[in-house]
């Protein structure tokens, strides 16, 4: 019970941090909205013939892209705690060892839900209407969170391995741009060269985007959703132990300027 309260307190802290850090807030709100609007009006005609048709295609794409980008802040925040000594302050308190990480990831889940709702709201203002049954929405959110949770482990590893928070951001975004763009988030799979199609079809981002499209606008869901979940399990199985090991190693190696 006490541990849960401590975990919630740490999650509260991560969320309050955003208030005093307008850049981060912008990354969660203005940036994805900008992506959505720009892509919609610039590519809409070329890709889908009209912006109306493109909207229901690209909205899930932007939601998933943003989901993946927001996880970078898990690594960013963790790294800044490690480099600025806050992690030590927390470790010297009588709280469970896993609480700082759990609090951070919990806060990330809250941010993710808010981002998803924000983008859906903006989509609605731009004319998007859900065509699938209503329960598609909660299922989509749960699926997205499950993937974000697993992907957070990748960012925990990046956060632990990086020298400073700026490197986390640099590395995170540099690695994530190709991962999100080499997918069918913004263009239909059929328009890509065939060698690239194989890669794109295997990309978890593609599977997630397809599931979201199905859940919001109708179409196949089960196949891509299962694919995305398999990816989530694989990513967690690989990166969770790696991250924990790297974190322990980093903490044990510390002595002087830390």
């Amino acid at each position, binding site marked *: 019970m006490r541990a849960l309260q401590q975990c919630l307190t740490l999650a509260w*802290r991560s969320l*309050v941090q955003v208030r*005093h850090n307008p850049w981060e807030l912008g990354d969660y709100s203005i940036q994805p909205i900008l992506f959505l609007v720009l892509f919609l009006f610039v590519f809409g005609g070329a890709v889908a013939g009209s912006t109306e048709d493109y909207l229901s295609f690209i909205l899930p794409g932007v939601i998933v892209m943003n989901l993946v980008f927001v996880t970078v802040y898990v690594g960013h925040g963790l790294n*800044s*705690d490690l480099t600025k000594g806050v992690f*030590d302050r927390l470790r*010297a308190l009588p709280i469970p060892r896993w609480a700082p990480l759990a609090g951070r990831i919990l806060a990330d889940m809250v941010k993710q839900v808010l981002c998803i709702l924000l983008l859906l709201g903006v989509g609605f203002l731009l004319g998007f209407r859900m065509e699938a049954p209503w329960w598609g929405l909660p299922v989509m959110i749960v699926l997205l969170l499950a993937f974000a949770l697993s992907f957070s482990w990748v960012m925990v590893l990046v956060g632990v391995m990086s020298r400073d928070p700026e490197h986390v951001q640099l590395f995170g975004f540099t690695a994530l741009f190709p991962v999100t763009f080499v997918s069918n988030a913004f263009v239909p799979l059929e328009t890509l060269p065939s060698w690239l199609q194989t890669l794109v079809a295997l990309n978890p981002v593609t599977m997630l985007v397809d599931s979201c499209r199905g859940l919001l606008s109708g179409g196949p869901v089960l196949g891509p959703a299962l694919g995305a979940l398999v990816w989530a399990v694989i990513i967690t199985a690989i990166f969770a132990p790696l991250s924990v090991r790297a974190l322990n190693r980093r903490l044990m190696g510390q*002595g002087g300027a830390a």
Partner: protein
Amino acid sequence: MPAAIQITDLSKRFGATQALAGVDLSVPEGTVLGLLGPNGAGKTTLVRILATLLQADAGEVRVGGFDVRTQAHQVRELIGLTGQYASVDEKLTGRENLILIARLLGFSRADARDRTRSLLEQFHLQDAAHRAAKTYSGGMRRRLDLAASLVGRPRILFLDEPTTGLDPRARLDLWQLVRGLVGEGTTVLLTTQYLDEADALANEIAIIDQGRVIASGTAQSLKARVGHRNLEVVVRERDDIARVAEWVSRITGRPADIKGHRVSAPAADPEHLPALVRALDEAGVPVDELALRGASLDDVFLSLTGRRAGPGPDDAEESA
């Protein structure tokens, strides 16, 4: 009196560096131990092991009677830590930083607010309470950091170079605060590179160098160990400094140390003072100050290690 901190044969190695090489220390409850040593001596490593942040390679460490290795949680309930570099959450306000710690320690919302308010007041941070800590000056951050380590009213407090980077006024405030805490029964282990600080605060001083305690005892007993006193003269005219230095080293038989107008050398014989007075008088050289001083801790360090203590030139590098 039971020992609040008991360290037996503690060692820690980082790769090729033996940071601690068999340290034994004991700090009685309600006293201050000053751990004095130059940069790289192993002070931070020792504090981090005591605070359960780092595992030792060998040796036994008990804090409040609990083993830091196997009873880390119980140790954490007793201690407060202010690390060498301020570890505040820069993205939170000062107030939020303290509320965070209070809530994690199990304070209710109302209690957390009360405790935070009184600490902000005590550390003169009320006016900055609602600003993000990243806008704080170095001194303010240090104060906030210290306040954060006192939220839970720890029985045992570790302060790793707490006054490094503070202005003289803030330094005296901190000394006053430490005295107050000790008056209330808190045990304090404080590391410092400043001899006057250890002298001013500590009941016992342990001098640590290259991972070993090379001397320990009260400031008084350490000074007595050196066994000599210092002949010091402050020359009024710049032109006289050179020849006064020459007399000083001839009389004492030791090389004279010159700092500005102050010329000094260790004096083994009390007769050195009148000898110097006669020389000055004969030549009619005016002086502002002339004394035979008891050894300072600086002298103690010098005589024990052959080097001067105090912040080394590689300080900046370490804090980077």
